[in-house]
């Protein structure tokens, strides 16, 4: 309907004719460049105009002098309502013939035409009304378009939120009171992400990440990251391997200006060992029960920046002591600004942590309250995580995902054996655990001891690698500095390994009454020492752990071969295995 439509209301035929002639003499330039006259519609009364209104859909309504003099407020109101939201101006003709002074203009209408008509004035009015009308309609069309886009956008956001919400379904964040976390409501589409799960051997792995940029683009990056995390960690891939995979993936998919700052930690609650990689995140803070604070600063570039990485050398190792807590946060906290533009910053945060010697449990809430009070005006994305590193619930013995409820009953495990030998080149980077476990998950009954097997294999392999092949002495770990030094040394020696091997054999035999799985691990090292000096507090830990999951652990001093057995069905079962373990306990402590 490109025409400019004018509806004229007038009861007097002469006046009507004069008005029509007047309006017809005006032409406007249409959008196609043609000059056109307005299209006229006439009604003799307001009632008739109301009837015609919807059909005509006028852009302008003119009341002739008679109609203007008699129209009531109610009629005008109804006419205006017929126009809907689009404002249609109403012009009254006011007859000034024979009047000495102008009467007050009626307020029911938007403007007046005075009689006697002045052609140039009428044309000016019509042209300007048309221009404003066009302008108004294009604004409304834009508004409608924006409304539609906004509705679509909200719908997309809701779907995206749901997807990201579901990504977190696999996490174990809510399974333990040892973890407290706060992610701002905006975080889901703001590039912050938090994920946690367990390794097959019962370690807790948690990551807090922050994508550069904001909005949907930043959040989309969370999908590959989370899916790599939740598929690799529960299968037993080592943290460095998972991080390398994440870096590789992000590097290949992210636009150049985007990257991901990430802190990933692995807590071994049994060995009280914390490993942490910080790639560009604000330093997580380790708060010892003594009140001392240690900052674990970033030692790696954010992930997705470079195709190469030095993940192994950037992982820090920390010995966990009773009562230790770890706080992690995203830079939303540092960057929270008050009305003066002043950042909340790290020092305020550390002061809060430092002051809080009385009741540690409240630090978390106090930080959140302080940050929110500081940034009263703008609630930005902020993520905060508190990990109670020695909370008993973190030390779980069976994993819900594995459905261990049936105890040691289940399908047949069968008769089989496999052997895997890793050469020095493989030992630099390979992690045999996921490969061996993936063989084992094929066995229907294996789920019963998957975790035990993962722990035993992990311990045996680590022992063979660290002490056998790399010739590291557990005694180094006896001090805090030594503990860190030990792992630095391991990363260094492992990276330069040019000889040595580790062989792992698994064999299963099963009869009607039960079965056993035997693990044999050998290495190229010089063998277990004949006599060990008093082991440091942390050496020998591995052996004890091994004995809690295996019925029998056998090795000879001077030999580099160790054999461990897991049994199920009848016969000695775990739990009252104390007697069978007696053998092992007589052996010298194993420097695991």
């Amino acid at each position, binding site marked *: 309907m490109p025409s400019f439509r004018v509806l004229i209301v007038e009861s007097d035929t002469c006046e009507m004719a004069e008005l029509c002639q007047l309006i017809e003499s005006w032409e406007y330039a249409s959008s196609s460049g043609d000059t056109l006259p307005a299209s006229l519609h006439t009604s003799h009364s307001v009632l008739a105009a109301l009837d015609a209104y919807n059909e005509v859909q006028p852009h302008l309504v003119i009341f002739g002098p008679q109609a203007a003099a008699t129209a009531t407020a109610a009629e005008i109101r109804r006419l205006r309502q017929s126009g809907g939201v689009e404002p249609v101006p109403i012009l009254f003709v006011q007859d000034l013939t024979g009047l000495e002074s102008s009467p007050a203009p009626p307020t029911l209408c938007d403007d007046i035409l005075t009689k006697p008509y002045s052609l140039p004035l009428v044309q000016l009015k019509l042209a300007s009304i048309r221009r404003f009308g066009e302008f108004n309609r294009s604004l409304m069309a834009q508004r409608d378009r924006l409304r539609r886009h906004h509705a679509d956008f909200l719908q997309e956001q809701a779907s995206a939120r749901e997807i990201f919400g579901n990504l977190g379904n696999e996490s174990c964040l809510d399974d333990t009171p040892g973890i407290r976390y706060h992610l701002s409501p905006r975080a889901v589409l*703001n*590039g912050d992400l938090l994920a946690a799960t367990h390794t097959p051997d019962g370690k807790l792995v948690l990551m807090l990440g*922050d994508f*550069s*940029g*904001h909005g949907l683009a*930043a959040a989309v990056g969370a999908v590959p990251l989370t899916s790599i995390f939740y598929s690799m960690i529960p299968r037993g891939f080592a943290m460095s391997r998972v991080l390398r995979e994440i870096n590789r993936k992000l590097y290949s998919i992210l636009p*150049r*200006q*985007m*990257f991901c*700052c990430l802190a990933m930690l692995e807590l071994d609650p049994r060995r009280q060992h914390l490993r942490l990689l910080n*790639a*560009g*995140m*604000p*330093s997580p803070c380790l708060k010892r029960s003594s009140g001392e604070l240690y900052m674990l*600063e*970033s*030692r*790696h*570039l*954010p992930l997705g*920046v*470079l195709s190469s990485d030095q993940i192994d050398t950037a992982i820090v190792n920390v010995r966990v002591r009773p009562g230790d807590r770890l706080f992690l946060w995203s*830079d*939303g906290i540092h*960057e929270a*600004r008050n009305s003066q*533009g002043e*950042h909340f910053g790290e020092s305020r945060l550390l002061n809060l942590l430092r002051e809080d010697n009385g009741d540690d449990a409240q630090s978390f809430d106090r930080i959140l309250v302080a940050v929110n009070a500081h940034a009263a005006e*703008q609630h*930005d*994305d902020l993520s905060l995580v508190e990990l109670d590193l020695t909370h008993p619930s973190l030390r779980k013995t069976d994993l819900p995902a594995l459905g261990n409820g049936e105890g040691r009953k289940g399908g047949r495990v069968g008769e089989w054996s496999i052997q895997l030998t890793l050469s020095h080149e493989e030992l630099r980077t390979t992690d045999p655990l996921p490969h061996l476990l993936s063989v084992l998950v094929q066995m229907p009954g294996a789920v019963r001891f998957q975790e035990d097997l993962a722990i035993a294999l992990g311990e045996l392999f680590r022992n063979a690698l660290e002490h056998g092949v790399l010739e590291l002495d557990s005694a180094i770990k006896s001090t805090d500095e030594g503990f860190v030094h030990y792992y630095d040394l391991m990363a260094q020696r492992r990276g330069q390994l040019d000889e040595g091997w580790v062989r792992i054999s698994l064999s299963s035999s099963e009869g009607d009454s039960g079965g056993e799985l035997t693990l044999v691990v050998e290495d190229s090292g010089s063998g277990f020492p004949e006599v060990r000096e008093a082991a440091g507090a942390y050496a020998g830990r591995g052996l004890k752990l091994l004995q809690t999951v295996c019925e029998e652990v056998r090795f000879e001093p001077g030999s580099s071969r160790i054999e461990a057995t897991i049994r199920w069905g009848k016969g000695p079962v775990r739990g009252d295995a104390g007697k069978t373990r007696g053998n092992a306990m007589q052996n010298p402590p194993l420097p695991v």
Partner: protein
Amino acid sequence: MVVSDRFESKVSSVFSDSGGDLVIRVTGNFDFNMHREFQRAYRNVSPPPERFLVDLSETDHLDSAALGMLLLLRDYCAELGSGGVQPTVELLNANAHVSHILSVSNFDRIFSIR
């Protein structure tokens, strides 16, 4: 990440006296709002300079979007370098706060910082 336009920021670029270096100075907050201006400051400079010197002496704060922009500049240099000598990027005069952000991100490993 925070996007705020409440704080005045601007980008300026001038050739050094010797003519070989393009000095880009970012004043105020170096954040996502600067990305157009920052790109304009280094793109289509003809002939391309030997070095891009990003002067951060007037920069109050730097966020991850700014780090992303520096990565783009680094990539742009590699692009320019495909036909001849590759220009280098140097970050200058960062204040303590900005230096801290650069070192947290370990950007000192891929940029030369003075």
